[in-house]
């Protein structure tokens, strides 16, 4: 188990290096007017040259990347070129709300999807059809459209929730709950049905297997068979789809945070990318890659725990 985990970690680090290089290269070639964006449209060529030298924009790509990478290895992600704030600080300020949003959503998705999936597989009929149709609809409607509909109904018209986040420094849990309710509901509605669909298929497949028949013949109750045996065997399929959804959420929350004006990493990603704030974009990329690596690792470990065969491969 330890070597397995270490091997996964090593490949994750490799991925981190490759992605940081690729991102840096892409940013290098796509943003040519950074100094002007910082100084404004009326800056003179001399002012721009001065700023470019100050930021090291006049250096060749390998030099700039190595400079960034060695600092990053020491844990220093630099400062924003636009507002001078340390990148690590900026990200640490914003990451908690994004992670809370993602984790709460995915836990709810897991719980509800499992319940729906098992119910659909066991009961079939009407419940099953609803889950099947729901999967198609839920997948087809983009999360931000759902979010806008929810805001219009529950925030603007009914006034049950704030339309934009009220989370601020020192805000109590109620601000977090009311501010994150609608985005969480939007994510859950958007994601739950396709997970439920996966779990349903896996459970149906398991229910047809010989061991289930054997268990039934031994007189075990149907509920016990489903919850103890079938669900355990069906779990890997569910875990895989949930981990993919969690990673997909990294992109999904960017737009949701923008709509609900939540001070997470989403709006930061958008602004930094638009203006070419390379230190911030690089910092966020690293965080995103690390989150992906951790999630994959956790899922792999969980799969291994559920099914010893995975560990050997």
């Amino acid at each position, binding site marked *: 188990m330890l070597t397995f985990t270490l091997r996964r970690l090593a490949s994750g680090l490799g991925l981190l290096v490759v992605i940081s290089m690729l991102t840096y290269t892409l940013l290098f070639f796509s943003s040519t007017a950074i100094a002007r964006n910082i100084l404004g449209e009326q800056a003179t060529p001399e002012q721009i040259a001065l700023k470019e030298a100050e930021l090291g924009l006049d250096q060749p790509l390998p030099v700039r990347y190595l400079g960034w990478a060695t600092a990053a290895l020491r844990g220093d992600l630099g400062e924003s070129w636009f507002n001078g704030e340390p990148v690590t600080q900026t990200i640490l300020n914003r990451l908690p709300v994004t992670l809370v949003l993602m984790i709460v959503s995915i836990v709810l998705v897991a719980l509800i999807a499992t319940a729906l999936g098992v119910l659909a597989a066991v009961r079939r009929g009407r419940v099953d059809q609803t889950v099947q149709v729901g999967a198609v609809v839920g997948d087809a409607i983009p999360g931000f459209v759902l979010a806008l509909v929810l805001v219009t109904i529950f925030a*603007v018209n009914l006034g*049950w929730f704030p339309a934009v986040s009220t989370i601020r420094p020192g805000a109590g849990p*109620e601000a977090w709950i*009311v501010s994150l309710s609608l985005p969480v509901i939007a994510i859950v509605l958007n994601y739950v049905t396709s997970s439920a669909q996966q779990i349903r298929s896996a459970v149906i497949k398991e229910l047809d297997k010989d061991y289930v028949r054997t268990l039934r013949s031994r007189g075990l109750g149907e509920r016990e068979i489903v919850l103890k045996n079938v669900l355990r065997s069906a779990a890997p399929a569910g875990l895989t789809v949930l981990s993919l959804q969690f990673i997909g959420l990294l992109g999904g929350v960017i737009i949701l945070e923008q709509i609900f004006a939540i001070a997470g990493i989403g709006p930061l990603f958008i602004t930094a990318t638009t203006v070419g704030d390379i230190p911030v974009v690089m910092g966020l990329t690293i965080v995103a890659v690390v989150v992906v690596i951790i999630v994959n690792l956790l899922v792999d470990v969980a799969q291994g725990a559920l099914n010893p065969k995975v560990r050997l491969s």
Partner: protein
Amino acid sequence: MKSIMKTVGIVAAGALLLSGCAAGTPQTEETAGGDTAARGPLLTIGQLGDLASWDPSQAHVGHALVPYQLVYDTLILREPDGELSPMLATEWNYNDDRTVLTVDLRTDVSFSDGEPFDAEAVVANLEHFKAGNGRQAVQLTQFESATAVDEDTVEINLAQPDPAMEYYLSQAAGLMASPAAIEAGTLETDPIGTGPYLYDKANSVRDSQSLFAAKEDYWNPELQKFDEVELRILVDVSARVNAIISGQVDWTTLEAKSADQAEDAGLEIIPDYQVDWTGMTFLDRDGVINPALADERVRQAINYAVDRDTLLEELQLGRGTATSQVFGPDSGAFVDDLEEYYTYDPEKAKELMDEAGYEDGFELKLPVIPAFATQITALAQQLGEIGITVTQETVPPANYVQDVVQKKFEAFNFNLFQGEAWVAINQIISPTATFNPFGTTAPELEELISVVQQGGEDSEAAAQDVNRYVTENAWFLPLYRIDQISVFNPEKVTVVAQTQSAMPSIYNFSPAE
């Protein structure tokens, strides 16, 4: 099985109940009520973006100027109609050749860190602004030096006359910060001024919200109309729409397409509020890249080929005013009869094209960024009618202005600010203007510009002649002036437009009656 469902159901219902309750409680605290004169409790402003720095040398215009007014006073106060009134400066006068501006100062004001506001402080601020090289560094282009004559008198020495200097002292260049804070280099995150409010750093989060509290004993309580002011940063337009309709912000800026929705919800839009004109600027008027554009008949033909009223209706839902001139009604350079100088006349456009020798048309290459994609597509269709083929080249938005300045385009579409005549001339017309990268000029035009620069009586007439010259010679393709969709909640606040500024000054906000 059933028990799982039940548990999930109860948890979900509980969460909804809990959140429903919490949302039901009002988000703003009850007001103490009536303890301070006519001050309102809290003003919440929905801003389009956050400031990069609280250092006034980095201040800009419009939305990127007003937040500074919370913390910093300016030397001169610009009234909503553009008139300049005393603020930290009580009086100001030019010498005869308008190169020395003598400014008298208030003597009863101090900065929030206890430093006195005096002539030395003004000198330190002007020098700091000049050295700070910010987005409005151009405001002190003519500034050479400043000297403290005595404690409450400053002399500002200019290299050449600048008719907009007094205006600049009501804008970014006039914001006054504590000299001690300038010295310490801490203004970027800790603004210290003499202004009506104090920045509450502990309760502010960059790019999310900034909080300000009224400063007790502010020297001019008339300008201090709220106990607290909050800036909510709402980059996304649908977030701004939702926030103002649901009452979470009292004022914000929207777009034409959400204006009806806001009005239906009982909100008010500040009437007759226009700041920018939109359309195309012909850059290559000497024909370096595209020889066709050197012929003014071609540029005029383009102006006649365009149906401004239809474009205004389709692109801006009629919220604006079609125009043929680039100067606004309050600029001093506005000329009534230029307003409809170019009417929609495809026949005349074709004749002009024939005369210029382009009866078979030509190719016009335009850079495209998302903000102008629809405008350009609509123009391409109308220009196609007189044989002009518009080739669209998509460019990264971040590089747009840079590429204009570097003479990469023959023409480009943009929204340009209609400020004071001298400001606009320096932005789009003079040979050194940012948006005249090819340095197009003419002797008669330069003559007029130098008269404008001298200021005084003849200045305004000369500015109008500049306007006439660039309109008749079709330097631009102005389409229409855009209505600002500046929305406020009339139950909470009253807001008055600030002429030539995309955002009303902070002093223009007051509690609703």
